[in-house]
């Protein structure tokens, strides 16, 4: 399988509209001698109502790709779009607004404000935007995530798994075009992790959300519809309908190649 060549030109969408798209996206840190290309002309599409996992060894650029696509980090060259919005042309305030209105986030940790209740945390992006939550939608998310009895609790009164579910609920509540999740199960035990991934899967299927998840866990990746592999800032492979074993095999192959290189 060839690497960059096959992915340099985005393939025509297999199904549904594109929620976000990177075209020739590069991210360079430093200058001259210390110049490091974290992303090297990456082109990728995230289709609506699809659950994509981004995998790769540390330093492969998977987090950078997510940050650039989510409007958290600037782009050196190329293009990153959410829907029809070109991120490269936006200033800080517009990026902030974009994140607020069209992007959801789930981080590995520090997702919630300890001073706010679970419900207040969930509606925080809407509060910031000065919008009202759609009660039916909110109800549906809360029920789907199994948080009904926990809404008045403070984060410190919730388990790690529950806290991450609140974070997912918050990411979904504003009906964003795309949700980015950065190692959402990284701090969870395997059962809570599996539960959370089940919910993410569910929200793609039942709520038709678009989710992009960065992970290094093959089991987590196996919940996705598609896995995109990154190495050295380039997309090197892709699997559809992955299983944990298939992902693991593919990663072993990269590792072996990395060692022989």
């Amino acid at each position, binding site marked *: 399988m060839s690497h960059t060549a096959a992915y340099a030109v985005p393939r025509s969408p297999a199904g549904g509209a594109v929620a976000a798209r990177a075209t020739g996206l590069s991210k360079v840190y430093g200058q001259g001698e210390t110049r490091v290309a974290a992303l090297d002309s990456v082109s990728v599409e995230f289709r609506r109502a699809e659950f994509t996992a981004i995998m790769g060894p540390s330093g492969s650029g998977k*987090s950078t790709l997510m*940050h650039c696509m*989510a409007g*958290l*980090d600037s782009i050196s060259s190329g293009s990153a779009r959410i829907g029809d919005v070109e991120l490269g042309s936006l200033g*800080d*305030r517009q990026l*902030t*607004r974009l*994140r*607020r*209105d069209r992007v*959801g*986030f789930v*981080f590995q*940790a*520090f*997702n919630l*404000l*300890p*001073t*706010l209740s679970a419900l207040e945390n969930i509606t*925080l*992006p809407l*509060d*910031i*935007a*000065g919008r009202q939550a759609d009660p039916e939608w909110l109800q549906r998310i809360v029920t789907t995530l199994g948080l009904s009895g926990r809404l008045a609790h403070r984060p*410190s009164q919730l388990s*790690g798994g529950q806290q991450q579910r609140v974070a997912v609920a*918050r990411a979904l509540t504003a009906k964003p075009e795309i949700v980015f999740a*950065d190692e959402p199960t990284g701090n969870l035990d395997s059962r809570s992790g599996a539960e959370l991934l089940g919910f993410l899967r569910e929200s793609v299927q039942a709520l038709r959300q678009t989710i992009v998840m960065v992970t290094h866990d093959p089991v987590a990746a196996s919940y996705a519809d598609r896995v995109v592999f990154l190495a050295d800032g380039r997309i090197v492979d892709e699997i559809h309908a992955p299983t944990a074993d298939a992902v693991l095999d593919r990663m072993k192959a990269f590792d072996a190649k990395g060692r022989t290189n």
Partner: protein
Amino acid sequence: MFRTALRNLLAHKTRLMMTALAVLLGTAFVSGTLVFSDSVGGAYRDRLSKSLDDVAVSVTTGGPSTDPKEQATALDDAMVKRIAALPGVASVRPSVSGMPMIADRHGDPVGGDWGSDGDNYVPGKDGKDSRYPLVKGRGPAAEGEIALDAKTAAKAGVTLGGTVRLAVDGPVIDKKLVGIVKTDNPRVSAGAGLALFDTATAQKLFGKPGEFTELAVSATPGTDQTALTAKVRATLPKTFEARSGQELAATQAKMIDEQTSSIRKTLLIFAGISLFVGVFIIANTFTMLIAQRTREIALLRAVGASRRQVVRSVLIEAGLLGLIASALGFVLGIGVATGLHPVLNGTGASLPDGPLVITPSAVLSALGVGVVVTVLAAWLPSRKAARIAPVEALASVEAAPAPRSLVLRNSLGAALTALGVGVMLYVTRFKDSGGINYAMAGSALTLAGLIVLAPLLSRPLVRLFGRLAIRLHGVSGKLARENALRNPRRTAATASALMIGLTLITGLTVGAVSADRGMSTMGAPDMTADYKVSSTSYLGLSPEIARTLAGQPGVAAAVPLRSAGFQTDTSPGSVTATDVRALGKVLDVTVTGGSLADVRGTTAVAVSDKFAKEHRLTVGSTLPMAFYDGKKATPRVVAVYKDTDILSSVLAAPALVDPHQEKVRDSQVLVKAAPGKAGDLAEKIKETLGKNPLIKVQSQDDLRRHEAGSIDDILYLMYGLLGMAVVIAVVGVVNTLAMSVFERTREIGMLRAIGLDRREVKRMVRLESVMIAMFGAVLGVGAGVFLAWSTGHLLRSSFPQYEMVVPWGRIAVFLLLALAVGVLAAVWPARRAAKLDTLEAIGAQ
């Protein structure tokens, strides 16, 4: 452990900066005060030693004698000759001194309240007076001549050859300026004027011809001062006083020390307040640092450090911080000392100039105070560090320490506050200063109680402000409220610092405004005269002035009032002598018994109701009066009048009082204008009296303003001195916010990621700041008003016109200022929060 402490100090430089600033400002105030008072004392002493340089013995007439035989002798030429003839005496300088009033360009006295010193110019063998070295011209030698020092001449607007206008106790005298001299007189360097005359003229102006007021004896080299003083004393009549130069210097040095130590004490109280405010900031910082460093400390414990070592490490860190900050503070303090001089002089205190005096004890006290305060403030937090268990090094990141219960603290705070309020309510039952100790204890208890109770009080108040903030600013208001409520101890400690300053400021303001109101109703309500003419010197006015005024067109009545001292059987008293029949034209006297018209001749007096009560007098009783010339009288009481500020407690006809006075002088003349002529009469009176610097003409309004003005001056000085405490409190708010922003870096990053823009982040920090500041301000204003109200009762007997006034306008200004303080304190922390790189903040890279 010392190395750990030092490393920690260096590692947290920026985080400790604000704390260091708080300590620095406090110690700067302390060291500034010390250096300042040492310098002022030094300057006084320096002047003094110069002016007493060659005085071995000083001879003065002493007090008035009651023995008529001794009254005959005076300090005259014969006495000078007798002393000069004594062995060991090099020379005798006979001086005649007094207090002339020199007119400035406007006819007001040079030297303000200090007035001027008058002395005689005593030419030596070379024709010059060594006490007053000439700068220009020559010494005064004839009656029409005068010499001044350069400053006085400048203030009087006279150059050599020009005319100096002055007055001693009568009309204006013109003298030609013939010389400019230098002087070491400390009063003159402090702001008083100086005028020199030839001896005969000085005697005419200040005493009697041929008599001196002081003889300054200088000794031949090798003569013992004490022995010479004894010898001189032996040649003098009993009433005269002979004191050695050393003795004189010691007495005056003691006076100087008393004077400077009272300034020092006052300033140190305010410096102490500033330091106390700083304690909250230091304690807050160390509490936060230790919370942030929990894992580090747990690790130290895990690898074998004992609790004691952990505590010691924290305290050493505090000590080092205190030392560095106070050393810098001392340097700043020297600047403060330099600046205090003009500031205090600007409010009327006249202090001599001189070099800065930096004593080792000042350095040591400032550094000591800085270190001790910092270490003490860090002591409680250090106990918290000791409680950190080694296992916490292994705990997961998320486990924030469960907030400790406030139950104990709240109960203690409630008890203290209740006790304080109780004591203050008890204070309201006092009518005089007898309750002052209770008032101080009660105020301290109330404040301490509020400080302890502040975390509890912060909840409802911050919620209240929060409601407003949310309505105005939505989500950033809500986040700010939650942040302010998150750690009630921290919010409370930060606000307490501000509360202390505002309690004092509000309390003083309420007191001052109320006193002001009291005085304005006081003024001289019973004075029906339009003007009060009085003297700027303590010598009073020549009776001629009242006569001149009475003949002035536009004047309906000019009634002179004289006062004199006397002794009853039991206590000293004061009597006003006046033409009682004319008194009614200028004064509303309420007679409660007898008739004022009967007060005449040498056998009848009236007394005030207060005096009558104190001495059990009624109409018909006799009042034994012993005057200071040794003569006695036993007039009958013929009337009793209601006590008033203008009259003394006894009212008599001049016939009774005048014969016992050395010189008859009016203390004031009350002038009633003819109908419709009151408007420009003040100017006309001054004009008629030759723009005499001795004469002060005050209308009713002037009288009121005079009293109120001095209160305002003091109030503004207090504001200035308390300003430092407020500045330190502001530093505390900045500190807390900056630390909080640092602690909440990841949270802020997350908020930025999910869509809070920079402006809203800034607003969130700013609103938190404003809530903390307003919380402190509301508590402070409330406590200040309450304490001022309860303490005000102590004035009821001595100042019955005092009436509690709540100055809403000023309180509103204070609250607005607190709001501004909140906004200002948040500028830097808010900018830092807004500038946080989102990616770094969420800990991604």
